[in-house]
Each structure stands twice: as structure tokens, then as C-alpha cells.
């Protein structure tokens, strides 16, 4: 593969590209899902191909092919160059890339147990037992259990001399219980909704989730939800658990700090960002206890890697420091426009896609204290857990989330369970209302394996480390 990559780079240079790179990507994905004790899904998918980026006349071109054969190199490179020439026919500012010392290196996700070496029998057995555990609870209509294992082997080479090999392994699992009766439906999940939680890790991560041990509780929760009253309409103190807070970080911090959105290059699809350049080093994004980093080095994070897809080393950068907005996620093309170097955030969804600025692990740093202490210190409020729905405007300001379950907090104790909880707010107001973040003992990584962006659409695996946190004067119960 290295030889193939070098040949492609040589061909790019011969065809006149002022810069070029190639990625050869070999992906293996295994998806398993059970449904009420039967096999809903068990499939293995593999995909091999290569993609070539070229800058010609200061403009980008990209071409890719699933035929990783020597006679395909020239055809794909020629296509990328021709496309770049077509791009340059619509005048714009020539592409300028930030300086980068090219490296020859390798990286592999630390894995204790190769998930592809574990037998399908063992995996199915775990999921069927979890599925069965949920169905032990009377009133559950549907039990589901999920597992996904994912491996990417990639070679990256650039015309600047970089040659990088990486093996990324992601593993995750989860389960969901559904109850249906009289036109009402509720869902309760573990450890997170939408197929569970995911990490850069091997099968040891899946085992540690202990799905079977949590199955009955998940079933009991969903049955109880069917009898619970609707979340009331109020403006109150809101405490979010880690799973929901991770998505709050994702949508209202992770996306608006992407510098390509700020520059308008996602305007026609996902939108732009309220974080215009005048807000850098000036905007009070959150209260003084809010500290956020973009960290591609967090052990186990779903957004952890060795090098991004431009060959930039993984790094940890400040995004919000003591509440102040201090940094974006950037690429080699966008960073020089604000006088900075790339933060190493460019990643592509496979060989057939170009890299875009994607979140690595966008982590909210821990504060202090336990969740129990936080609840005990709250006279009146509501505690929401596990995301159910999300929506945010095209500048990432006005958001509304729904969660699976909530509890009333009164005099420092959890009380009434509520169904259909929702809350809404405006991003900087919300983060400035944050007056407590739990400590390192509550801090946990959450993986989001379905982050969409770009045209053609791309799906990225990103991570968020968070501890439960408290927000004041939040509008809840929007469905009332």
C-alpha cells in the first residue's frame, strides 16, 4: 500500500499539481442487532479504495476509485487534476495551506481485545441475554440490543513527503426498551440512545458496558415512564446527565467552532456559525467555570487518532477558557486565514470522501463534586437524562432537545418522574447560566458515531468528555 501511495503522489506531481495527497483506506464494519429475541441484523461490510486530492491553479480537485490497482492511479489522478482545473475556472482566492513538517509515522488505536477476533457466537450471546433481560419486565413491547465494531486501515501520503499509516478501531454497544399502549410510546436506553455508546477501543470496552446487568432496570424504567406525567412547562434549574450534556456540547459548541462553517463553506447545507471572527478572544461563551478543549489525544475517545487526514498530528487545543471563546477547530486551509496553524481536525468518511473539519473529542473539562452532591444542593429543578431528540438553527444559536426521562428535584432530592421532557435555549445564554459542573469522578467519554456534515454527506465518529452540569433559568416542557 505504501508503494501504491508513493506512486500516486509521484503521478500527482507529474500531472502538475502544486500540492497533492492520497489516502488508501480499507474499512471493515460489523453490525449486529437483535429485536425481541430474533436476529434483526447481522452484517459485515468491507470497503477498499483510494482518494486523491490535488491543487491546480490554486483550486481543489478530488477523485476516487474502489479499484486499488496500479493501472487505476493515472486515471484517478488525471481526473482529480482535471476537476481542479475546472474549479479554478470560477475565480476565488487561491488555496494556501499552513506550514507543516511532513512526517513518516504510524499510529494504532490501543486495543486489548481485537473485536474482530471475538466470535460472533459470543457477541450474539451477550446481545440475546440483554434482549431477554429487558423482556423479563412485564409491559415492555420491544427489546433491542446493538453492537458495532469498526476498523479502518489507512495509508496517507502527500507531495510534501508525509507517509503515515494508521489503524483506527472503534467498538460500541447498547440496548433499548420500548413500551407501547393506548397511543403512547416510550423508549429507554442504556448506556445511551441511538444504539449505545462507542469508544476508540477493542471488545474490552463492550464487555465493560455490562449490558446484561442493566437490562432489567432499562425495562422497568420504560414501563414506569408510561405512567409518568408529562414534563411541566416551567423556567427552572436544569441538571443534565452526561449522555444529554455530551450532545449539548456537540451541537452548541462542537459545530459552531468549526472554522469552515464560520467561513461559510457549509452554508448551503448544515449552515454557518454565530461565532464570527470578531468573537474570537472576546465572547464570553459561558460562565467562568466552563472550560472546553478540542482534544484528538484523549485515550478512548471516539474522536481520538494519531494524525488527521492532512497529516497534521493529533493535538489538544483550548476552545473555551474560563468561559471565554479562545479557539476554533481548523484545517491547513482555514487556519492561516486567522493567523494560526491547523488544529489537526480534518477527517474524511472513507476513501471516497474529502476530509472536512470534524470534531475530535470536544470535551467539557470537569469541575468538582459528585452528581449526588449537585442534586442535594438544588432546592428546586429538574434532572434530565439520555437524549431523545435534537434540533438547532443554522447558526447554532436556538436549540431544543428532548430526553428520554426526567425527574423533578425538590429540596435536594429526586422526586416525580416525568415523560417527554424537553428544554430549549439560546447557546451563549445557556452556557453562561452554567453554575456547576461535576468533578473528575463523574467525567465520562461519550461517543457520537453519527455526526453528519458535507455534500456528498459524510458521517464522522466524534467524542465528548463531560460530567453532569447544572444550568439556571432554563425553559423546560416545551411540548405542554
Amino acid at each position: 500500500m505504501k508503494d501504491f501511495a508513493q506512486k500516486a503522489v509521484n503521478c500527482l506531481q507529474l500531472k502538475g499539481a502544486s500540492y497533492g495527497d492520497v489516502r488508501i483506506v480499507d474499512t471493515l464494519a460489523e453490525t449486529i442487532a437483535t429485536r425481541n429475541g430474533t436476529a434483526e441484523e447481522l452484517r459485515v461490510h468491507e470497503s477498499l479504495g483510494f482518494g486523491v486530492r490535488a491543487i491546480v491553479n490554486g483550486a481543489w480537485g478530488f477523485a476516487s476509485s474502489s479499484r486499488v490497482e496500479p493501472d487505476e492511479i493515472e486515471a484517478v489522478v488525471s481526473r482529480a487534476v482535471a476537476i481542479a482545473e475546472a474549479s479554478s475556472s470560477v475565480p476565488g482566492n487561491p488555496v494556501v495551506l499552513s506550514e507543516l513538517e511532513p512526517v513518516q509515522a504510524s499510529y494504532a488505536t490501543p486495543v486489548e481485545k481485537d473485536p474482530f477476533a471475538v466470535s460472533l457466537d459470543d457477541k450474539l450471546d451477550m446481545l440475546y441475554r440483554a434482549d431477554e433481560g429487558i423482556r423479563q419486565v412485564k409491559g415492555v413491547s420491544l427489546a433491542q440490543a446493538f453492537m458495532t465494531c469498526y476498523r479502518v486501515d489507512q495509508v496517507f501520503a502527500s507531495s510534501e513527503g508525509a507517509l503515515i499509516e494508521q489503524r483506527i478501531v472503534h467498538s460500541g454497544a447498547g440496548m433499548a426498551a420500548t413500551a407501547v399502549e393506548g397511543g403512547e410510546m416510550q423508549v429507554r436506553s442504556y448506556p445511551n440512545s441511538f444504539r449505545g455508546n462507542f469508544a476508540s477501543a477493542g471488545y474490552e470496552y463492550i464487555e465493560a458496558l455490562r449490558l446484561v446487568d442493566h437490562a432489567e432496570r432499562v425495562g422497568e424504567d420504560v414501563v414506569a415512564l408510561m405512567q409518568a406525567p408529562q414534563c411541566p412547562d416551567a423556567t427552572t434549574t436544569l441538571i443534565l446527565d452526561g449522555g444529554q450534556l455530551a450532545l449539548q456540547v456537540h451541537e452548541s459548541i462542537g459545530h459552531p467552532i468549526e472554522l469552515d462553517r464560520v467561513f461559510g463553506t457549509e452554508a448551503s447545507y448544515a449552515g454557518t456559525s454565530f461565532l464570527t471572527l470578531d468573537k474570537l478572544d472576546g465572547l464570553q461563551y459561558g460562565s467562568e467555570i466552563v472550560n472546553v478543549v478540542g482534544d484528538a489525544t484523549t485515550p478512548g475517545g471516539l474522536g481520538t487518532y494519531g494524525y488527521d487526514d492532512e497529516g497534521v498530528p493529533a493535538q489538544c487545543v483550548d476552545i473555551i477558557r474560563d468561559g471565554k471563546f479562545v479557539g476554533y477547530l481548523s484545517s491547513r486551509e482555514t487556519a492561516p486565514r486567522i493567523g494560526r496553524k491547523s488544529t489537526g481536525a480534518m477527517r474524511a468518511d472513507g476513501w471516497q470522501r474529502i476530509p472536512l473539519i470534524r470534531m475530535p473529542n470536544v470535551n467539557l473539562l470537569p469541575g468538582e463534586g459528585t452528581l449526588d452532591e449537585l442534586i442535594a444542593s438544588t432546592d428546586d429543578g429538574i434532572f434530565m437524562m439520555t437524549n431523545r431528540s435534537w434540533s438547532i438553527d443554522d447558526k447554532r444559536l436556538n436549540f431544543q432537545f428532548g430526553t428520554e426521562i426526567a425527574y423533578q428535584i425538590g429540596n435536594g432530592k429526586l422526586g416525580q418522574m416525568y415523560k417527554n421532557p424537553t428544554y430549549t435555549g439560546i447557546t451563549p445564554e445557556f452556557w453562561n447560566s452554567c453554575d456547576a459542573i461535576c468533578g473528575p469522578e463523574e467525567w465520562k467519554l461519550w461517543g457520537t458515531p453519527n455526526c453528519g456534515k458535507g455534500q456528498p454527506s459524510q458521517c464522522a465518529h466524534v467524542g465528548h468528555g463531560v460530567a453532569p452540569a447544572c444550568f439556571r433559568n432554563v425553559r423546560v416542557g416545551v411540548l405542554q
Partner: protein
Amino acid sequence: MLGKERCFEIADAVIKASSADQTETMVASDDSCLTRFANNYIHQNVAVSDAVVRVRAFIGKKMGVASSNRLTPEGLAEVANRAVEIAKLQREMPAFVSLPKPQERTPVSAWHDATAEFTPDLRAQAVRIETELATAQNCIASGAFSTESGEMALANSLGLRAYVPTTRAEFTTVVMCDTGSGYAYATSRDVGDITPNVMAAGAVQTAVDSRDPVDLEPGEYTVVLSHSAVGEFVDFLAWLGFGARDKQEGRSFMAESMGKKVTGDSITIWDDALDPAGLPFPFDSEGVRKQKVMLIEDGIARNVVYDSLTAAVDGVESTGHCLGTGWHPYPTNLFMAPGDSSTEEMIAATERGVFVSRFHYVNVSEPMHTVLTGMTRDGTFLIENGVLTRPVKNMRFTQSVLDAFASADMISADTRIVEGDTRVPAVRVRSFRFSGATVAS
């Protein structure tokens, strides 16, 4: 493109290599190009060439699925074997009866040479026209222009054979200017149907007209929903209720509604993949011929769509709506019946209301009652005394689709294909809930 002969050569090789009781092979290839522009220049410009084989192997009622893009003889034998090995480990799927048998299909025209032969230079030319229009009005154009050609072949060990070559062109643009923005979208099998200059002019005008938006208090309003906004609602209805599995499990608004009124009388929605007014496609991912299915007729819930598995549960015939393993049956070629009005007449008939050009980031808040939340985007206007008087800042809605359609009282005679491949009219809704507003930051 592999071509029909090569597709079936691959499919037959896989079926021959499989030791399963029944084997199905899908071969799909894709040559797609997309030119993306922003800030009045092309910033991304890509091409992909891929071909994939997917195998479903059945041993009794046990199913294994494997897919790969390694199309060498060794690769094909490996993917066949992998599917069989997976099937051996599976539990039985009680609903499985058999793979579909060979059947007649209505041929459709889904291929246009002009689309397949479209070049990066031609896409760049279209972008240049738009950026010049935008620049002349001090606006910034962004968007994407894609052209693709592909093919799908289905074969199974019972002798079923299906093949279709397809093309598709898609153009989308958002034009921004100061505090305003406008949007346009078109798709067709034939790139000749796409008129970027006309679309761009409309988006530029909306951007100019929507500058300096004012605040509007959230609350109940009469709204005129553009084709795009209606399409989003129809797509979510489909997601929440038009598939047979959700109905069978009681997890959709259709479960207890068959034969009952679910919307206003003027709402009729159906799925028809064979209608050339949509994006025609002849068969589903099991090779079953597509059938027209009436979903809501004059406001009454009529049917849901089926794949083979869900059809067996209800003892009916598959309607040809299998999307593939891991998905439930789903209608991908939706139509909503036109009325006899026009967008202009709806606005003229509205004393006070809101015109919505487009929704953004819509998601489900409460599935059984079809409650969605989302934002408006790219041109939201206040209607006063029958005219658009002022642009308003983007609003958040939290609204049941069925309730909205229950108060639909005017529907446009013209229909358009919108994002999501649904052909819909514009609709006036008497009672629509905006639950929040955007503040400047």
C-alpha cells in the same frame, strides 16, 4: 459503470459460490460527481467511482448478510462464504418465507445520457452563472451541483433477475446577503431539467427581500408553507408512520388509524415509484416490483408499505418497499395531491400570517402524535392584509404534522420535487405553533 452483463456475471458467481438454501445478490455501481461552491467560488469538487456487491444468504429461516467492493473472483467467493457463515450463527426469523420469485416489472426510464456525460467544466459553468448573478446584487452564493450515473442489479437463486441503470442531477443553492438569505433546489434524472440561472435568480431575490428581518412573537399563526417545508412534513410522516413494521408493532400513528380520519379532507398522500413525474425506479432492494400505494386519501389513513418480511406477517403481498437489511419498509417516492390554489393566492387570502420558505434541522419531539420541532430558514416573511410586508427572524416551531394538516385549507395546484425526492404542493395551514424565536448574538 459495470454494465448489465458484468453485474449479472458477478451476481451469478456469488450465487454459485454460496452453499445457502437461498441466496440473493445485489450489485450496485456508482459514478458520481459533485461541485460545491461557497463565497462565490468552487471550494470542493469531487468524483467517486465505486461498485459494491451485497449478499443475503438464507439457511432455512436464518439470514446472513455481507457486502464488499472487492469484485475479484476471490473477493466474491469470500463475501458469499461470509454471508453463509453468518447465517449459520443466526436465530431464525419467523416471518421469513422465501426470497421473491421471478416476476414481471413495469419498465421505467431512469437514464439520461446528458446527465451521465455531464462534465466538471459544465458544472463549473453553471456555478459561474450563479456567482455572477449573486455578485451583481452584493450577495454570496453557495451550493452544490451533482451529476451521477449508477446501476443496480438484483439476482437470487430462485431465478429472479432485475436490472436498472439510473442517472440523477441535483442542484441546491443558498444565497446570502447581509442579514438575508434565499434558497432553491431541483433534482431530475435529466440534467437538462435543471435551470441553475432561473433558480439562482429566485434565491438571490429572496435573499435581498429577506434583509433586515424583524422580531416576531412566538405563538399560533396562519402559515403558508412553501413546497420545501411541506415536503419536510410529508417525509417525517412517512418516517413516523407509513412503514408496515411500525404499524405492526403499534409504534406509529397509523397503528390504530386505518380507515379513520387523520388529517383534513384535502390531504391525499401516496407513493408511486413508477410515476415519471417523480424519480422513477422499478424495484426494491429485494427485486420486488414497486407498487403504487395510497397512504392517506382525503384525510383518511388507507395503507402502509411492505417488504417481504412484513408482508408475510400480515399475509399480504410485498408492495416493493424494502430498503435493505436493518431498515424497515419505507416509501421513497411520495406524492401529495395538488389543490386548486397558488402560493400567491394563499398569501393574498391571509390577513395575518407567516410565509415559510424552508425548515431547518427538523427532528421528532413526540413520535406517536407526529410532533416535530425545527427552525425556519432562508426567507421567513410576515403576511399582513394579503401581502408579504416584512421579513422576520427565524422562528422555532413545535408542531404536530397531523394537526397542521388537519387545518390545511388551501393547497397549490403546482407541485415540485423537493429535497427528499417527494413531490408536493405548497399548503396554507390555519393553525401553526411557533414556540420560540432567535435572538441576535
